[in-house]
């Protein structure tokens, strides 16, 4: 029992799912690969929308048509990423909770969510943009923020696997499998 972590982190760590993931040999590579597939789809579909906002690609199509087509795919992939992410988190919840890269990644996800919400609720509704040509300035800023945040989320995600609970100061006697 570790007293430095919140009860819900401890509960996730001790859950049946966590226990199963700790002891199943084949589950982890499959779940990790599914996570890569999910995050790749999230990033790729968001990139299509962001590049359209910036006016870099897909300009022959109206933004509203394009985003209506892409966003459902983004959300399906995001839900898959959350489920597979939780499956990876559960077996080592306490270690991940204290990991700097993990915390920064969660912060990145919150910021990406806020950026998206501000764009959809404020910019998209109030700017009067009809979706032709490139987006107004606020929309292009949101697109740049979105690309940078998702890149940071992907890199931090890979960093978690390398630093585990040690944040790069790995003790001599610990062997890592990447």
């Amino acid at each position, binding site marked *: 029992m570790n007293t430095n972590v919140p009860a819900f982190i401890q509960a996730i760590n001790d859950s049946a799912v966590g226990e199963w993931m700790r002891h199943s*040999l*084949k589950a*982890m*590579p*499959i779940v*990790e*690969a*599914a996570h*890569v*597939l999910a*995050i*790749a*789809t*999230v*990033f*790729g*579909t968001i*990139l*299509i929308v962001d590049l359209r906002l910036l006016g870099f*690609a*897909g300009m*022959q*199509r109206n933004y509203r*048509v394009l985003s209506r*087509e892409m966003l459902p*795919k983004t959300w399906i992939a995001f839900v898959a990423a959350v489920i597979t992410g939780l499956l990876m988190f559960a077996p080592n919840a306490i270690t991940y909770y204290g990991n700097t890269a993990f915390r920064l990644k969660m912060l990145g996800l919150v910021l990406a969510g806020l950026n998206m919400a501000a764009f959809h609720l404020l910019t998209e509704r109030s700017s009067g943009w009809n979706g032709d040509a490139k987006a107004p300035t606020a929309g292009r800023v949101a697109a740049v923020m979105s690309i940078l945040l998702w*890149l940071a989320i*992907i*890199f931090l*995600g*890979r*960093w978690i*696997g*390398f630093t585990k609970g040690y944040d*790069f100061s790995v003790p001599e006697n610990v062997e890592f*499998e*990447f």
Partner: protein
Amino acid sequence: MFGFANWLGSTALSQAIQSALWLTPLLQGIHIVMIGIVFVSVLMIVLRIHGRVRADEPFVQTWKRFAPWLWSALCVMAVTGIILSIGEPVRQASALSFWLKMSLIVIAVLSVLGLRRAVARVAGPTIPASTRFAATVVLLVWIAIIFLGRAIAYDVEVWGALSLHQA
């Protein structure tokens, strides 16, 4: 093969890649970002063949939009992949997943080009069911490549005795 991998692992270049602790996660990060571009480009091409996206435009327009991104990102993946492999040649050579992945990449690239040719031959607006089925298979091959890529790090767990890792 193992002789070559052992030699490669002992070269100064390989040693330099291994000793820069930050380099491997950085390259893998770039590799994953590129998976996003490659996979979603293939996904869009396949979904267009099924008429599920961009049905309002001709296929060739979808192809022109995504094919350059697909090939460019694939080139970046080849570069990051080669540097990563030079850093860990023995682990790569002894992973069954690695050899399966390399074989499937050849098949996947050729089959995407094959889809392009098949659709180009279609007269009229409807793409035949056989081509649509082939497109789904092509998508599954790309998904298999992603799974095999992650499985390289777990070769013994995934393949057991089939793994080329000496026990």
